[in-house]
């Protein structure tokens, strides 16, 4: 059993949970993730490690209510316990080899780019951030990010805050500036967004690294559920990733595979919420 020691509602359907898990916290690094189960009958759900405090033994994650299992988790209150919490899984991100980095996130993808930004800041690396959301209310971690860097560009689809448009529009704008000199883009968000960023970056001959958010079961290389094709070879997001060079990914296949359980999930969600 693992205790929730902080619960903050950041936006509609987005919750920040802090979990007490000293063994996970003390070995965690940015880019890694956890798999948890809320209840003994629960699904195994992967979440990015958004932040961690080794001394306090805590791990922070952002939960967006998108289906039945995340809804059940979202009902957990501060001080209560979740059944299982395994991590840190996957490989840590290593962007320190690059000279100038552009971190791009859409929606909940900030959970991956925020710890990166912290790490890059600690190493005094040159980087900028683009943080996008549908509207102002869904733009989370604004203050936390501003504490790390001034080089941040907010975008909203409806123009309610920052730049009006998609993150890709902003990526294009930044890369169009000949002095921008980014040598890598790290993009995290929904698959179509990551693909779109990759396509823009490619026009400017800049490489893109993306972070997969695949369907997973064990998260330890056992089920093959999270597999994707990279440069014609089967890779497992859980043990080979979660990050991959966007250039080698078979995007159509990956997007198709992400929808495998869509119908059943919708039905589960409906039942759990008492909507059908």
């Amino acid at each position: 059993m693992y205790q929730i020691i902080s619960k903050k509602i950041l936006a509609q359907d987005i919750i920040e949970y802090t979990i007490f898990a000293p063994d996970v916290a003390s070995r965690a690094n940015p880019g890694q993730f956890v798999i948890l189960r809320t209840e003994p009958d629960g699904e195994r759900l992967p979440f990015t490690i958004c932040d961690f405090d080794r001394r306090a033994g805590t791990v922070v994650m952002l939960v967006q209510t998108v289906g039945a299992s995340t809804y059940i988790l979202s009902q957990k209150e501060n001080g209560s316990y979740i059944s299982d919490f395994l991590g840190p899984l996957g490989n840590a991100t290593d962007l320190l080899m690059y000279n100038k980095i552009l971190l791009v996130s859409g929606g909940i993808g900030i959970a991956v780019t925020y710890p990166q930004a912290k790490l890059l800041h600690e190493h005094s690396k040159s980087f900028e951030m683009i943080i996008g959301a549908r509207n102002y209310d869904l733009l989370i971690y604004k203050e936390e990010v501003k504490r790390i860097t001034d080089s941040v560009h907010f975008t909203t689809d409806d123009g309610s805050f920052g730049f009006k448009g998609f993150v890709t529009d902003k990526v294009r704008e930044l890369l169009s500036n000949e002095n921008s000199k980014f040598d890598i883009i790290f993009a995290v968000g929904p698959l179509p967004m990551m693909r779109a960023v990759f396509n823009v970056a490619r026009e400017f001959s800049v490489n893109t690294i993306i972070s997969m958010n695949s369907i997973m079961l064990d998260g330890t290389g056992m089920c093959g559920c999270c597999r994707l094709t990279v440069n014609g070879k089967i890779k497992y997001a859980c043990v080979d990733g979660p990050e991959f060079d966007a250039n080698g990914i078979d995007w159509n296949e990956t997007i198709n595979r992400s929808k495998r359980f869509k119908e059943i999930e919708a039905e589960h969600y409906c039942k759990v919420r008492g909507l059908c």
Partner: protein
Amino acid sequence: MLDVKRNALRELPIKERLTTFKETTFTYDDETAIKEAKRCHKCKNAPCAKGCPVGVDIPGFISKIACHDFDSAALILKSVNALPSICGRVCPQEEQCEKFCVKCKANREAVATGRLERFIGDYLLNKGNLPKASSVVSTKTSKIAVIGSGPASLSCANDCAMAGLDVTVFESLHSPGGVLTYGIPEFRLPKDLVNAEIESLKNIGVKIKVNYLIGKTLFFKELVEQYNAVFIGTGAGLPKFLGIEGEELNGVYSANEYLTRTNLMKAYSTNSQTPIVKHKNVIVLGGGNVAFDAARTALRLGTESTILAYRRGHNELRARHEEIVHAQQEGVQIKTLIAPVKIVSTDGVNVTSVEFVRSELSEPDSSGRRGFTLIPNSNFEIACDATIVAIGTNPNPLIKGGFDGLITDSRGCIPVDSNFKTNLDTVYAGGDATTGSATVISAMGAGKKAAASIIARFAN
């Protein structure tokens, strides 16, 4: 004629099996067990025992059953086999102990050793376990870490704990048992029983830590530093794929994924939050127990047709005879001498058929097993909406990257010496992690032998 046939196990009616994950067969009742035990000739040289990878005194425990002394039978069995209820169900006895039974030479059916082992195992679990905890707990100071909690690890942990060593088992999943829990279905090995056998290990002082992935949650190096000895029993969990076109399509599963969803996550139950798609026409590729487990699972989830396709002949199927018979009774169509060449989709997203080519058997190899050759231009398709790939597994790739200093071979297996020691001085390994996918009992045998080496060195 009295003694030709062994006593049958009572089975769940076929119709009922198709709608439930309940165990297919029932354990002998007392009377039948005694009757079966009395068929044993108590051969002095015990040829059966020589076929047992853990060396159970088979005539010894069976003769106790014959005289209704189940407690003594249990003591004999449990002294070398930590998990009799499990082994009695999933060991391939027909290729091990039972194959050497003298009765076979006289054209009679072998004494049903496995069924009697299961009977005693269940007797013990129903009764409460022997031996009692107080008699063995922590008399030695040496600390042993066991990585993984499948059959190799559990038998190693059991023997080390019985010898008084302080044993901690680390499991990455939320439930211990390894393949016994995530892989073998409920209808062949009920999970209550696996849990009960694991509880019996806790009773003798074995500590089990779940949600610990060694190499990630704790580093391998830390374990090696903090424990006197480490045993690696991480199995072979990485599914193999065929490497043919279309394996990435939706509706194509590894057997591990399909079985983990149903067994570990109980996706068949309405209480479970884990989804599984209820497919209509399923094709399973493979011919081992795992392929049959997947096919029988698919049937129970309500398929209209379930086909098991195997590239060699019926005689070459690797699954246990009993499981093949059960699968056929339940309606699995076994199609042999066909090899998959391509998984096909008409919409580019979901699998809609598998293209096969016919094959024929070729000469036996050095092991006596017949190979096959493909027949050119014999291609044809079978329609389906799901394909389950069950062609075996390799050791987990995390071992290679995460276990500093440990040598692995090209398949990712860990080489060990005759004491089951790896290239690292205090690190031992056994089971599928060292051999690639094999059987529960061979893993238990390895765990046991490794434990003997560990005990000889550390239990002083």
